[in-house]
């Protein structure tokens, strides 16, 4: 009876779900930045770039407790401005969900089921996510706890298989690629998994009141960095840099060649579930955020009725996004720029406006 009514997650669940969200599709797409052994620099640099933005996100949460980005923008930018911003953000959430659905259906088709068309795969992926999204946030919290344990287990398991082959030579020479290219790559990392967590702001009222949001963000950022570095080192050690470079799904390929004690080989079928649960989390959060957006644009009482239509729309969108896999990969660089307004511009505007708004509000009673 006690904590069930509250649609909130605890501090640690918050960290884990944010991490899982970011880990989601990057795990399967791989931290594949076309800069071979220098990728780890990009991962770390990206984390440093991300920190101020994460602090801004946390500040927004602190300023407007229990409100989501849509409500905040309506407070700050007025009714019409707020609705426009909400519509943009909703579009971004749905688009992101569609991108992830497409990534995964593409991955599953290539990796294990070449003859199965993508639509049925996408449909059951979408339905599962819609089911979780229409449950409450606490179920998402539990889901992340369990999933992160599975992911960690598999990661450590595969990492352990690589650690005895690891040589420091593998990441030499440092900075082979020009600085410009490395910076570009880190911008990709910033926009691709890290800053996508802006979607969490769109759900709102998820974190328990006593948690400090900046700690949630920073903890999960460090977890993400650790996981991405582990993935990177594992892949480069086991696959070799060239093989890692040319594969669409390096982690999957790594799973294929791991052998344990000579009898357990080719476990990729079971290890790809690791990618899948990350992907589901990401789709779920996006759909929830999109449904929340629709709710605040049209002033509905409950976001749950909007879950299924947004999921369906994301599904439909995912089928027409790309005409082939290569296009999907090439889109990543465009995505970095495309996502900037949603990940950076809107939050910064809202933050500044929010600071001014709260100052004014605090002053008002004194006069």
């Amino acid at each position: 009876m006690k904590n069930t009514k509250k649609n909130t997650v605890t501090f640690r669940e918050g960290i884990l779900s944010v991490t899982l969200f970011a880990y989601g599709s990057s795990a399967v797409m791989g931290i594949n930045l076309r800069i071979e052994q220098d990728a780890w620099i990009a991962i770390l640099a990206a984390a440093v770039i991300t920190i101020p933005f994460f602090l801004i996100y946390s500040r927004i949460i602190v300023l407007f407790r229990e409100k989501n980005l849509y409500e905040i923008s309506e407070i700050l930018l007025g009714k019409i401005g707020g609705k426009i911003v909400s519509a943009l953000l909703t579009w971004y959430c749905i688009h992101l969900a569609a991108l992830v659905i497409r990534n995964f259906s593409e991955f599953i088709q290539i990796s294990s089921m070449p003859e199965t068309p993508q639509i049925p795969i996408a449909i059951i992926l979408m339905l599962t996510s819609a089911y979780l999204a229409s449950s409450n946030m606490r179920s998402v919290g539990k889901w992340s706890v369990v999933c992160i344990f599975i992911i960690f287990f598999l990661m450590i398991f595969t990492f352990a298989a690589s650690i005895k082959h690891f040589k420091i030579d593998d990441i030499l020479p440092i900075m082979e690629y020009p600085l410009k290219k490395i910076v570009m790559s880190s911008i990709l990392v910033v926009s691709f998994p890290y800053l996508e967590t802006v979607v969490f702001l769109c759900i709102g009222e998820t974190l328990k009141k006593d948690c400090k949001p900046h700690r949630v963000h920073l903890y999960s950022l460090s977890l993400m960095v650790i996981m991405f570095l582990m993935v990177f080192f594992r892949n480069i050690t086991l696959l070799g840099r060239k093989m890692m470079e040319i594969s669409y799904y390096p982690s999957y390929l790594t799973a294929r060649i791991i052998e344990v004690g000579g009898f357990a080989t080719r476990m990729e079928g079971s290890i790809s579930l690791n990618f899948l649960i990350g992907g589901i989390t990401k789709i779920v959060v996006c759909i929830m955020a999109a449904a929340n957006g629709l709710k605040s644009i049209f002033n509905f009482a409950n976001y749950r009725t909007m879950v299924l239509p947004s999921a369906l729309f994301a599904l439909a969108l995912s089928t027409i996004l790309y005409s082939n896999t290569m296009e999907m990969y090439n889109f990543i660089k465009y995505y970095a720029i495309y996502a900037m307004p949603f990940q950076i511009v809107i939050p910064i505007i809202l933050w500044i406006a929010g600071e001014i708004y709260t100052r004014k509000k605090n002053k008002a009673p004194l006069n």
Partner: protein
Amino acid sequence: MNKRSARKACFLLLSIIICLYLTGCWNYRGLDQMNIVVGIAVDFNKAENLYDLSFEVASLAGANKESGIVGRIINAQGKTIFDAIRNAKRKEADKLFFGSPHVLVINKYLASEMGILGVIDFFLRDGEGRESMCVAISQEETAAIIIESTEGAIEMVSVNLHEIMREEKNIMGSAAQMEMYKIFSELSSKKRSVLLPALRKVKNGDSIVSEANGSAIIKEDKLVGFLNPDQSKYALMAQGELKSSIITLGLTHNLANDISLEIFKNKAKKSYKIEDGKIKVKIEVENHVAVSENQSFINLKDEKEVEKVEKAAEEKINKNIQSVVSTMQERYNADVFGFGEMIYKRDLKFWEEISERWDEIYPTLEVEVKSKVKIRNTALIM
């Protein structure tokens, strides 16, 4: 709310799945509808410009539970590798299944003229294929002959060969087993050459079987030559990749060698320095060994005598590695030890300067070999 949506989602999924199930399953393939490929041999028919592939598949029909499973060969020709694989289906009711092939044997002419990367591309690309299969070069006229089983065989040849190559590294070290994905990664890194196992047919008792016979040198994806088992052992030792092996010494001027040393641990370190514009490479090899055979009546209780044995072993190793290295440099110009890669990793700028001329520089490198042998014990008796 949850209740209702839960029910809904379940019903929904169930109905869709049942629908799918009734209308057919795309990727469902029964185990009974497949030929399990365990080995592949690739030849090239120059006259007709076709790839000539032989597959060893597990022959299930004749086998019963008591006897072992033998392989049978399926031959197919095609304009590309994949074409040949699909052509094989014309003769067989069941599709070929490439989930667990163990070896890929490549014809030596094909390897020396057309290169091996083209051949392995299909197997790396295919979702079903196995990146970790062993690649070997046939020393016989065709590759197909290697995986052909002889009269009275009780096991599949390819599985056997895979075991032989796998164990070779741990027991004799005369052939360098290498997985497909590693070959790809190594060959595409800086001007590197690799060693692959070489296979031939020999007489063994009444039958003719395949055996590992040293290594094939692949330079920039083309075969340039072979090393005999002894040479490849020292080549591996210089790379520090030997798991175990034997060094024999002849100390007392007998006709035969009289001491066997069993290697337990092999470490190698490469370094380079530039002196007067010349690159000097140093290979330091360290071996931990045990005396496992002593026909020479040398008193191994005496530490001085032991030191003598160590010295002799060190000299032998130095000499042999030196000779392998110079063969590589002068005869084949193949950088199997990864000197170029070492320079690239340590000093990127320098490498960029010299990488264009690496093929000229490599044969002129001064290589110094320094080995160290430590006798750990003398087994059970003195």
